[in-house]
């Protein structure tokens, strides 16, 4: 289903969605992030790359998933804590962030379906915004099977046609959002479609960065486990967690208990984000650590995204959003690392 929406009436659409919890990119000083919006009039869809991707709404950095308490009469009691019923909408989702969620969907399904993830995922509608101008100087979505207007993971994709948005709907959830304000949407005309195609070809040309030959990387990586390449490349790494915590496709997590009172015992088991750059990620309780230094951890980050994930799910676990390049404190550039990998004969 293809429609057209005047930019002027976009705020009315957002107001009509009052039964949803509405997220949109919100600016605070220089940084943009997806937050719950209070005033539909002030939703601004002209924004650079957000610091954190919409993943933080569907796979929050911290979630309580089990509460345990013990009392003298009925001993130990467990209570499963499921996410609340909150139909929500996220506006301004970049295609690369939506593709990232489509990749994370693969991880959290399979033989052990993660009901916490899926409960949230199913109640959040993703309204995408195609990138007419690359939101970050380091976008490289074209190199990893993505594009500035890809639709994977999205319920609706809005593309900017100066005075109006070209609106494509892909799912029932998307249709419900449209039906909430049916009158605002007009059918798309041939002229709109032609203009859309023109904009899209230009948008593609504006993506300045790309990986040389991505196809060569997974096979080359297979033979590079023991190569000294990783020592040289990780010399400047400071072992912080920025590249993984900001990455829209990273899904590693940790499970810990938090005790509110010890007698009578009351507490909860929580899941928080975790990442492979920290030492306690893989350290055995005996102190042995299979990945003891930053070289092995850089290797794990690159291999997981460009070889293990490719073997297991037939996709690169990277959608080219460029956040890890823009925010690395020492300027380690994953594109340069990958270009060196593809031309590496160790």
């Amino acid at each position: 289903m293809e429609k057209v929406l005047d930019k002027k009436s976009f705020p009315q659409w957002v107001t009509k969605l009052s039964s949803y919890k509405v997220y949109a990119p919100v600016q605070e000083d220089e940084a943009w992030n997806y937050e719950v919006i209070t005033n539909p009039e002030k939703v601004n869809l002209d924004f650079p790359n957000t610091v954190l991707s919409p993943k933080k709404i569907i796979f929050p950095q911290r979630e309580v998933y089990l509460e345990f308490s013990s009392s003298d009469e009925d001993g130990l009691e467990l209570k499963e804590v499921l996410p609340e019923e909150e139909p929500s909408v996220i506006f301004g989702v970049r295609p690369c962030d939506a593709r990232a969620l489509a990749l994370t969907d693969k991880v959290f399904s399979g033989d052990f379906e993660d009901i916490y993830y899926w409960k949230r995922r199913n109640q959040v509608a993703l309204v995408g915004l195609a990138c007419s101008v690359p939101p970050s100087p380091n976008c490289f979505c074209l190199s990893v099977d993505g594009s500035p207007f890809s639709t994977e993971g999205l319920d609706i994709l809005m593309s900017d046609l100066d005075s109006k948005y070209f609106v494509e709907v892909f799912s029932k959830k998307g249709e419900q959002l449209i039906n909430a304000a049916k009158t605002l949407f007009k059918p798309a005309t041939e002229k709109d479609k032609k203009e859309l195609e023109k904009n899209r070809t230009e948008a593609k040309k504006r993506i300045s960065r790309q990986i040389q030959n991505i196809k060569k990387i997974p096979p080359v990586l297979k033979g590079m486990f023991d190569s000294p390449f990783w020592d040289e490349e990780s010399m400047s790494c400071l072992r912080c967690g920025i590249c993984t915590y900001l990455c829209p496709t990273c899904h590693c997590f940790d499970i810990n208990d938090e005790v509110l009172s010890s007698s009578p015992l009351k507490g909860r088991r929580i899941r928080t984000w975790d990442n492979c750059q920290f030492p306690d990620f893989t350290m055995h309780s005996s102190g042995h650590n299979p990945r003891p230094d930053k070289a092995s951890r850089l290797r794990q980050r690159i291999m997981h995204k460009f070889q293990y994930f490719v073997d297991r799910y037939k996709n690169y676990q990277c959608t080219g959003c460029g956040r890890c390049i823009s925010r690395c404190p020492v300027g380690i550039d994953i594109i340069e690392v990958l270009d060196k990998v593809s031309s590496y004969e160790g």
Partner: protein
Amino acid sequence: MKDNTYIPKLAKIIQIKEEVGGARPIKTFMTQFIQDNSFSFKCGQCAMLSVFGKGESMISISSTPLIRDYLQFSILKMGRVTSSLHEMQEGDIIGIRGPYGNGFPMEKWKGKNLIFIGGGIGLAPIWSVLHTALEKKGEYGDSMLVYGARTSKDIVFKQELAELRKKMKVHLSVDVEEPGWQEFVGFVPLNVLEIKPSPKNAIAVTCGPPIMIKFVIQNLKALGFEDEQIYTTVENKMKCGIGKCGRCNIGLHYVCKDGPVYSWAELKNLPQEY
């Protein structure tokens, strides 16, 4: 609604037996589920034990799946969770979730002689598959156990081992000379060379400290065992147990889901990340 594997089922500790005292104590716990007992598993699979307020720890199930009314775990006191388990009394409640891991491919071992080689607490995962093989006498060839520990005090399942000698060949060893010890003195891999088990129509299963596994596999290959005939289990830090939290991988494999049991044919091609 598919059951949520993250939520442990409550179980009561019905019996605790102290196997080994001293600085590296080992205790065997027998646990019984409070509500349903529909927990079925394969030999070599593990379960995530929960001590609420402390955390979880992945432990291999050492009782045979043929026993329905309890699960047995032998636990070496190592960290926060295992220490709290060691402080528990009979009747205390813990959480168990699982079963996790691929378990031993026993269907491939029909009619084969089974050679079990264990070191220290490594006997726990072997205990389950060894008793299952004994129970189903006809299906397998004759089995043999080669087991060693640092000192005689560190040997687990002492009474059961004496019982076992009546049913199969058991070769014990201690690492260092000890008054009153008649059997082999020295590391387990050397004991294997001493016993020279025949590789003909045989499967070798070895669990124990990584250093022991390395030399046992070396010696087994010297004795003519093929890579497909040698099985072992791999240890890595685990938190989710279902291949999602991303930490226990060796190369492409998540040890908690695709492992912990690997034949040497598979393991030798995987990177040394355990």
